[in-house]
C-alpha cells in the first residue's frame, strides 16, 4: 500500500517477462491497465505508466527529423527504471500503449511484434458497438486476448 515499496522494488517472478501493459487514451486517461505480477504493486505500476506519459509526449512533440520515423507508431524504449524497462507505442488516434517489462535485454523486434498484436486486439475491442469510446475497456475477451499475447511474448523471446 505504501509508496515506499515503489523505490524498494517488489520481487517479481523471474519467468514473467511483462509485468504490466496499459492502454492510455488521448487525453492521458487510463483505459486499461493490467499487471501480470502476483505482488500487490498495482499502485506502483500505475505510477510508472503515468510517468512514462511524459516521455511519450516528449517523443511526440519532438519527433526525430528523419523520414522513416514520421509515421512510426512504435516509440521504442521510453525509459529504464531500476527494475523495469518501459516501452511505448502510439496509435494514429493518439492512444498510447505502454509495456513494462522486467526483461532487461528485450529484442526490439519482439516488442514491435507484441505491440502490433496488442494493437489488433485493441482495435477489435473498441470496434465492439457496445464499447463507449473514451471509457475504460471492460471487455473480458480483450483481457483474455491480452494475457494470451503477453504469455506468448515471454515464450517467443525465450526461444
Amino acid at each position, binding site marked *: 500500500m505504501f*509508496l515506499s515499496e515503489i523505490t524498494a522494488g517488489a520481487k517479481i517472478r523471474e519467468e514473467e517477462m511483462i509485468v504490466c501493459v496499459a492502454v492510455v487514451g488521448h487525453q492521458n486517461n487510463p483505459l486499461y491497465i493490467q499487471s501480470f505480477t502476483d505482488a500487490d504493486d498495482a499502485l506502483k505500476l500505475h505510477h510508472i505508466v503515468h510517468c512514462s506519459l511524459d516521455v511519450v509526449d516528449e517523443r511526440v512533440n519532438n519527433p526525430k527529423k528523419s523520414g522513416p520515423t514520421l509515421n512510426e507508431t512504435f516509440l521504442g524504449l521510453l525509459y529504464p527504471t531500476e527494475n523495469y524497462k518501459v516501452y511505448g507505442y502510439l496509435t494514429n488516434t493518439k492512444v498510447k500503449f505502454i509495456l513494462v517489462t522486467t526483461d532487461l535485454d528485450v529484442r526490439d523486434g519482439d516488442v514491435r511484434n507484441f505491440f502490433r498484436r496488442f494493437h489488433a486486439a485493441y482495435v477489435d475491442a473498441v470496434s465492439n458497438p457496445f464499447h463507449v469510446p473514451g471509457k475504460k475497456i471492460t471487455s473480458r475477451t480483450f483481457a483474455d486476448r491480452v494475457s494470451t499475447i503477453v504469455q506468448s511474448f515471454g515464450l517467443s523471446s525465450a526461444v
Partner: protein
Amino acid sequence: MVIVTTKKAHNFFLRRHLTTGHPNLEPLLCTSNRKIRSKKPLAVHLSYIRFNQPRASEKPLSTCIRASDQSEERGVMVDPANTPLGKMLLEEITPVVMVLCTPLVEESCLKNGLSFVQMLSPFCDFTNIDVPVQTASDQPYRLHKFKFRLFYASDIRQPNLEVAKERLKQVITKVGEDDFPEISSDLPQVNDLLSRHESEILPPWFQFFNKELVRTLSFSDHEAFDHPVACLLVVSSRDEEPINRFIDLFNTNKLPSLLNDGAMDPKILKHYLLVHDNQDGASAKATKLLTEMRSTFRPNDCQLLCINSSQDGQTRHKDTPWATFRSDALATEHLGHFLKLDDLNEIKNLMQELSSKHIIPYMEQKIRLLNQQVSSTRKGFRNQFKNLWWRKGKEDALDTTNGPVYTFSSIESQIRVLGDYAFMLRDYELAVSSYRLISTDYKLDKAWKRYAGVQEMIGLTYFMLDQSRKEAEYCMENAFNTYLKLGSAVQQNATRCGLWWIEMQKTRNQIKEAATVYFRICGSFTFGCDARASFFCYLLSKPPMLHKYGFHLVLSGDHYKKCDQIKHAIRTYRNAVSVYRGTTWNLIKDCVHFHIGQWYASLGMYDVAVTHMLEILASSHQSKTSQELFLRDFLHIVQKTGKMFEVLKLQLPVINISSLKAIFEDHRTYASPAAASIKEGVWRSLEEDMIPSLSAKSNWLDVQSKLIPRKYKESNICVAGEAIIVGIEFKNPLQIPISILKANSSNVKPQNDEYKTSTSTGFLYIILVLCTTSNGVCITTAGILIHLWFYRRLTFHWKGGETILVQLTVTPRVEGILTIVGVKWKLSSSVVGLHNFESNSVNKRIAKGRRKAKHSPSADLKFIVIKVHVSPTNLLFAVFINIFLLCNCILLVLFTMNNLKMKISNPRFLNAGNQSYLNVEFPACLEKKLNVEQSGGHANAKKMLQNVFHFPEDISVQEETSLSWPLWFHAAVPGHISLYITVYYEMENVSSIMKFHTLRMHYNLQVLPSLDVSFELSPCPSRLEEFLFRMDVVNKTSSECFQIHQLSSVGQRWDVSLLQPVDSILPSQSLFAGQALSCFFMLKVGTTIEELAPWIIHLYHRKSSTSEDSNPLFLQSDVRLGPPGNSEALFDVCSSPLADFHDYERLYQGMSCQGNVDFVFITQLRRGNIDSGVPHRPLLFSHHVCHCSFSPISWFLDGPQTIQHNFSASPCGVNLKMTINNSSDAASSVHIKTFDPPSSNSQSIDATASQSGLPLENQAGWFSIPAVNDTKVITTDALAKRITKSVSLESAPQFIWTGSSSTKLKLQPRATAEIPLQICVFAPGIYDLSNYALCWNLAPIEESQGEANKSSGECRGYPYYLTVLQST
C-alpha cells in the same frame, strides 16, 4: 541614483568604445540603452558592466569573441556572477578573517546586544571598494566587489557531522512549521504552479538548506578557501597590559587545529585592534595605548576602534545592518543602541582599510609568491616530467582512503592555496590553471577527496568564466562521482557538489538534466532530510513534465514521511493532488488523498483530514479491502473530531439525481400509493371527458393571477395537508455493506429561525424549507418569514452496489410557498451529507393535466401551498369486489360535494349500478319480474357506453356521511385485469382556486378460469329456421362446484328448448371440478308466447322502447337447467347489469353480419363455508357466448319418400319442392347448383364435412338420436358419411337432375320462396339427393357495410333419401 550610475557606466562605455573600438561592446550598449526603463534588467546590466568592464578591455580580443559566440549559441547571455550560483559563490567563497578577542571586548560589544563579530560583519561586504589588484600576470585590474568573512578562532573547525545533521533537520522542521499555516488553505492549481516563479516552487527550506550545508562543510582541510587569510587580534582598552594580551591571544594552544596540525601556514597576516569603550571614559588612555602598540608591533598593523559613543543608549538605527546576522533578535530589542553614527562610520572605515590595505595586498603578495614557487617547481616540461616520475615512485606506498597527508608546505597545498586565492580575487584564469595543475597530481596520488574538491572548483571556475560549459559540467560530474565513490564520509560534499552542479544546469536551462542529478543525490544518500527537490525541475522544464512532477512529488512526500517531516510530506502531497486532480488515475489519486488525510489526522487537524478522506469514500474501483480501510479510517477520523460534519455532495451514498421525482396532488387524490405510480397518461385519458375544459384563458390559476405574484407563477400548486412525495434513488457504490441507523419520526416545529434538531440519530432524512406568510397566498412584500424543516427518517442497510428508492413525504401545514431544497442524510451518526437539487434538472411528475407547459427546473420543486377547508385525503374510498359476477360499493366519508361523476377504464369488467340495488338482496334483484318494465336500470345504458357515469343530480354527499354506490363486476376473461376508476367531484364552500377534485383508484385483479363454455350450432335439415345445438361445458377450476342454472339466448326471437331433460345428463345439477358436460338443445324461431313449451317461462322481452336504438332487439329465451321441480326464478339477462355486460361482450367478441344468436349461460357457486365478509351470498356466473353464427339461408327439400315406378316403360321423374328462407335483414340472391351423382359422390361427402366447418375429430360424444317423428334426423356428418357410403355401395345410383342445372332466384329479407325441382331416376334403388349446393349472396346492408365480411356462402345439400321401387 541608479540612473546616475547607469549614465556613468554608459559614458564610460562610450568612451571605451571610442578609444578602443572594441566591436563586442556594441550590443551591450544597445541593450543597456533599451532596457533603461525597467528597473530589474537594468540592475542586471549594471552589475554586468561593473564586473566586466575592467576585464573586457584587458582580455585578449579573441577570448571575448569566443565567449560571445558561445553565448549566442545558447541564446541567453547571462553574467555568471549574477546567477544564483554565481551570487552564492561570490558570497561563500571569500577570504576568512580569524578573530581573537579578549572577554572585555565582547563585554563592551554585548551592551549593544551584539557580539564583536556580529558587530563588524555587516561592514565586511564592499560593493564598490575599487582596489587595483595585480596577481600573477603583469596587467593589474581593479576589484570592485569584495567581501571577507569574520570568524572567531574557536569557530574555525570542522563542525561535528551529527550536530550538523541535527541542525539541518531543525532548519527543515522549522521551515515546515513556518510554512504550514499557509498550506492548510486551498489546494494549489496546476496552472498556478506553472505560472509561479521558481523560488516559490522550490521547497521553502531549500535556500536555508543550501546555506547550512555549505556552512557545515566549511573549514575542511582539503579546501583552502576557508582557511583564514588574516588574523584580527582585538584587545579592550580596559584590559590590563594590553600589549601582553595581544601576544597571549595569539597563543598557539588556542589556535584552531587547522593552523596547528599543519594543514595551513600558521604564519598569517596579523592585525592588532584596540577597542575602546567610550562609556569607560575619554579615549586618551586608548590613544596612549595605541602608540605603545605601534611601537611594539608594526605601526601599520595597529588600529584603534572607539565604540559606544552614545551615553544614554537611545540611538535608533533605521534598518539596522545587523538584522541578517541576528535574525533571532526580538523586535523590541534595539541592536546597537549605544552605537552612534560616528561609531558606525569608524567601523566602516576600519574594515575598508583592513581589506583594501591589508588583506587584498597580502593575498596579492601571497599569490605572486606562490605562483613563483609553482612556476619554478612545476611549470615547464622538465618539471612536469620530474613530477610525474616522482609520483609514480610513490604509488605503492600510500593507500589510505584520503591519500597522502599534505602539509601547508607541500607543493600540492600551495598550488591549491594559489588557486583558491586567485579565485577569491577573481583571477579565474589563474585559478583554473592552478586547479588543473593540481588535479592530476591528486589523481595520481589517489587523494580522491582532494581530487574531487579540485574538480569541483575547476567546474565552478569555468562557470564563473562562462567558458567551455561542457568542460565545467564534466568536472562537476567527475567531482560528484568521485565523492560518491568515497561513500558516506563525504556525503555532504557530494550533496553540495550536486547542488552546485544543479544550479549550474539550471542557469543554463538544462532543467531536465538537473532533475536527474537531483534524483541521483536523493538516490545515493539519506542525509538528514535530503533534497528531494527534483519534482520542481519537471515543472520548470519546457514543456512542463507534469506526470513526472507528480510522481516525484509523491516520492519526496514519501521520503519526508520516512524522515518524520509530516508537514513537508503533506505539502508535497498536496501539490501532487493538483497534478492528479481531474484525471482518471483513480488509484493514484485515492492513495494520495488517503495519505494526506491520514497525515493530517496524525497532526490532529481532523477537519482538513476529513475533507481529503471524503474524496476517496466512493471509490468503487478499489478493492474491497481498500474500501473497508478507507471507510474505517474516515469514520475513525470523523469520530475523533467529535463534531458533526455537514458535507455538500457527500459521495456516499451516491444520489441518482435523474431519479428525483416529486409526486404531488392538486386536483387529484390517489386512493392508494399504487394508484400514484400509474402513468399520468392513463389517468388523463380517463379524465378527458369529465374535467371541465381548462382553456388557456379561463383556468383557475389565471383567475388567481392577480393574487399570486409573478415569480411564483411557474410554481406548482399543492394543498395544505396533502402530502408531497419526493422519491429519490440512493446507491451504495461500494462493495461493502453500509449499515446504519435507527429511525425516528419527528414533528414539524415552526420556529422563527432556521432550526435543526441536533438530537436526530436518523440515517437518512429529507429537509424541506417552507416559507409562509401570514395571509395565505398573498406573498408580495412580506417575504420569507418562517423556515420549517421537515424531517423524515429512514434507516437502511445497503448491500454492496445496491440501489434503494427512497420515498419521503412532506406535508405542508400552512399556506405559503414551499420549496424542496435538497436532501440531507446522515452517515454513521456524525457525517451529514447534503445535496441540493436546485441546479439539477428534475424529472418530475406533474399534476396539471394538459395545462402543463414547460417549467424551468428550479421552479419544479417550488410549490404554492393553498388551503382547502377539509383535506380530500380524508376521503375514504373502498371498493369491495367479489371475484366473479357482482356488485359492490364505494364508501365515501367526506365533506359536502356534488356533481359527482365517475369513469371506469374498462366497462367490460366493471359497471356502475343503480342505487336501488343497494337495498335489494342479491341475487334476487336480478331475477325476472314478470311483465314489469324496468326502466331505471337501463336508462344508464347509453351513458355507460360513453364511459362516464353521472351520478344523479340530487346526490350530494354531506360531511361525515358516506355514500354507497353499487358497482357490478363481471370477470369476463381470465387473467390479470387492471381497473382504473376516477371520480370527479366538486366541492362546496371551498376556495375558488380549486374547484374540483378527482379521485383516482386503481385495482389489480386476477381472474381465474371457471367454466369453459362453447356452443356448436347446426341447421336442422328438415325444418326451416330450426337449429340443433350442442353446449359443451367444462369445469376448469380445481375445487369449485358449480350449479348450473339457466341458459338464455339473446337474439332475434329465438326460442331455446332442451332436447332431453337435464336430469338424464346431469342428475346432480352440479358440475364438479374437472367435469365436462354436453347438452343438446333445439333452437327455433319462436312465434307466440302461447306456443311455448312448458319449460319456457319467458319468451321474449322487449327492452328498449326507443326506436332509434341501434342495438339489436333484446329478446330473450331461457331454459332452466335446474331440476324440473325447482321453482327458483330465472335471471333476467335483458335487464341492467347483465344486459350491459352482454353488450360489452358482444362488442368484444366481434361482429358478424350473418344471422347469429347469443347465449348466456348462468351458473351459481354455492359455498358452504365462505370466508369473505359476505357469507352465504351466492356468486353468479354468467358466460356470454356471442355471435354463434349460422347461415341466413335455410331450406329444406320436400318430396315423396318412396315411389313405385315401372322402369320398363320409362325412367321415373320425381318432382321435389325446395323451400328457401332468408332469415337475414338483407335481400339475398340464391343460386342452386346440382351435380351428377357419379362424379360428385365422394366430393359431396367432403363438401358436407367442410360445410359444417367442424373438424371431424371433434365429434366424439355425439350420438344418433332416434327420430321422434317422421323426420329423419341425421345430425352427424360422420353418420351421413357412413350412410352415404353404404348406399353407394349397395346400389348403383342412377339419377340425374332434370331441368336447368342451376337455378337463381332473389329473396327479399325475411321472405320464403318455393322452388320446384325434378329428378329423373333410371333404376330402382335408394338415392341420396344431397348432391346439390346452395350459393347465396347477401346484398350488403348499408349500415353494416364495414363489417360485412361474410356476406356470401355456399351450402351443401342435406341428405335426402328417396326410395324408388319397381312397380309390379
